[in-house]
């Protein structure tokens, strides 16, 4: 029977970050490691559309049309045939306040996890973020060193502008991603009107992205060919797959692909882990001194509940379902569309009005125009015509807010092993009129009626299922990641984050996993 010092489950952001910290030790990563079964055979979206190869763009099995009847059946970034492998893991369902089924989804078995489809915003949490969100038993300073190491490893683009105080200081930023005309217009207006508190409380700046604008540590710069909705993030967009292949190439990790975790049992000196070969369903047992669970907030919690035979128990569940708001800049209608762009153009926050939110401004050119037609309340032929004049002067604001556990939003495991999330409390964005006022001053117009809220779990920022505490109770974790009653089993993913500031939590998951991995190394047993 194989015996390792450390076994990490999952190759997502948490898993690879812990593996990086444990480099040089006897570490095994157990991972299903699904790979894409199809590819996007074009170098840019323009080339794809000019090719006339309908099957290659819409998918051999019409994957891009999976939302034809139900607009929320599949996340827009997970529809394309080359991205389908990302969401083929254990299934879950989200049930709303009226016992209606809101979302039916699946976790990820892909190498690199859900990060294959992420927006690549990697942001630090500051002490302000943690105290505002509340219940964090650690301070941001405990993550600082890990943030810095990861930023150096990954390569972050951005700018030290008005958003620096909100985003936290990062050294050695790469130049920001190319800006499109409407972004330049908004930034010019902002520069002309800004005061110390932004414009009507709105501060904006360039986003911090794991997107290479020049080569970094042997990885190429991104080509900005507007293929983000058709391929998994790759090349100049960092994903955990990059770190995984780096570790494997260097021979620094024992990678057990094609396997999934079935059960684990803790003994005095080791943890025994039962794994299954996914293809043959053959089971085997391996052992390690320490087990690190990094399967994501939902799936790790599921495994822990199943392990403790507590499928009836319910755990907290939090998410970041964003509010979406199209914003129109008439002064930039008719702008010539750039050949290259990246969806996330700007980041902002409303200050001085209670809790801070985070607003990402997206430029929608990387989507098919047909995706946007049903959202325009006009006949589709004229919606297309309107879009042609308008798209150069259009951004979509994606608004994220602080999220905390509540009694109404809980997860549990059904007797058949699927995850059920009861999502009975939704947050309505309360600062819409303030945001609209600030945007008007920057030449952007929208209407409250155009704002829509994404379905729960749509943002994929899941957390708090096994929250870390100084003095944990059952189904909580210690600050060093250990399960409440365990010495050798640790949780390293988003499960342990007790609340979510408005910012994306991906970099914090990675930094926290690195922090926990470092503590495992130093634990002395």
């Amino acid at each position, binding site marked *: 029977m194989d015996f390792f010092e450390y076994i990490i489950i999952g190759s997502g952001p948490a898993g690879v970050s812990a593996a990086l910290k444990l480099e040089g030790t006897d570490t095994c990563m157990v991972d299903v490691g699904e790979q894409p079964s199809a590819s996007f055979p074009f170098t840019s979206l323009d080339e794809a559309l000019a090719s006339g190869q309908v099957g290659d763009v819409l998918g051999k*099995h019409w994957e891009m049309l999976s939302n034809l009847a139900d607009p929320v059946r599949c996340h827009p970034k997970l529809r394309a045939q080359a991205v389908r492998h990302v969401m083929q893991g254990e299934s879950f369902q989200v049930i709303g306040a009226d016992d209606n089924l809101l979302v039916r989804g699946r976790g990820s078995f892909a190498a690199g996890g859900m990060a294959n489809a992420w927006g690549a915003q990697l942001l630090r949490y500051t002490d302000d973020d943690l105290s505002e969100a509340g219940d964090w038993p650690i301070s941001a300073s405990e993550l600082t060193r890990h943030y810095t190491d990861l930023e150096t490893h990954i390569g972050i683009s951005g700018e030290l502008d008005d958003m620096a105080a909100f985003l936290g200081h990062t050294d050695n930023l790469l130049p920001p991603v190319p800006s499109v005309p409407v972004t330049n217009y908004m930034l010019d207006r902002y520069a002309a009107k800004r005061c110390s508190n932004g414009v009507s409380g709105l501060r904006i700046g360039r986003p911090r992205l794991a997107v290479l604008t020049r080569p970094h540590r042997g990885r190429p710069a991104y080509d900005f060919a507007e293929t983000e909705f058709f391929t998994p993030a790759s090349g100049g967009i960092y994903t955990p797959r990059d770190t995984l292949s780096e570790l494997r190439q260097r021979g620094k990790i024992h990678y057990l692909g094609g396997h999934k975790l079935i059960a684990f049992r803790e003994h005095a000196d080791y943890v025994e882990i039962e794994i299954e070969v996914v293809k043959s369903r053959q089971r085997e047992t391996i052992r390690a001194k320490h087990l690190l669970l990094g399967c994501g907030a939902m799936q790790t919690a599921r495994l822990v509940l199943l392990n403790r035979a507590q499928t009836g128990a319910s755990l907290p569940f939090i998410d970041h379902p964003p509010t979406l708001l199209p914003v129109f800049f*008439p002064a930039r209608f008719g702008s*010539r569309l750039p050949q290259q762009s990246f969806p996330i153009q700007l980041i902002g926050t409303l200050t001085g009005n209670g809790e801070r939110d985070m607003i990402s401004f997206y430029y929608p050119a990387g989507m098919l125009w047909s995706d946007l037609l049903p959202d325009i309340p006009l006949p589709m032929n004229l919606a297309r015509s309107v879009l042609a004049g308008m798209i150069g002067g259009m951004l979509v604001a994606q608004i994220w807010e602080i999220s905390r556990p509540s009694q109404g939003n809980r997860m549990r495991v059904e007797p058949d092993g699927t995850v059920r999330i009861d999502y009975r409390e939704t947050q309505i964005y309360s600062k819409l009129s303030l945001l609209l006022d600030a945007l008007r001053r920057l030449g952007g117009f929208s209407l409250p009626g155009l704002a829509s809220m994404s379905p729960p779990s749509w943002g994929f920022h899941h957390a708090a299922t096994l929250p870390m505490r100084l003095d944990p109770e059952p189904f909580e974790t210690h600050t060093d990641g250990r399960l409440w009653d365990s010495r050798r089993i640790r949780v390293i993913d988003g499960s342990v984050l007790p609340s979510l500031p408005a910012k994306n939590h991906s970099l914090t998951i990675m930094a926290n996993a690195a922090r926990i991995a470092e503590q495992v190394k130093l634990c002395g047993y």
Partner: protein
Amino acid sequence: MISDCASLTHEAEVLHRQFFHRDAPHKLIECYLRAHAELPDLAHASDDELRTVRVIIDKNLDALGIEPWLRAGPERHLLSRKLLLTAYLAECDAEHREFRQEVTGRVRGLVQLCWSSVRAAVQLLKGRFQKAMYGLL
């Protein structure tokens, strides 16, 4: 099967002509038929939806003007699905350059927006009238 194929071909031709004011390319019709054979979303529809589409095609009503009045509820109406399918196929077949061909120039952009809005108002009124007149659900 032959009559299904013939009626779907006719449906594709009508919807495409209304959408783009020209005949549908052969390839688009082929894809339209294949999508109907392979996509469950195009196979399942209520009797009301099937009747609405049949009446619109048979009487050559303004499908695009009627369709916005049928947008309600979490699931899209069969007519919306068929029009959307037509749009996707056209956008990807390299023969409809009006997709992704932006209008350049701020004045032209604004004029296009205003003109499209006026046309939309007329088309929506016509669609509302036809929907009521033929009892389309």
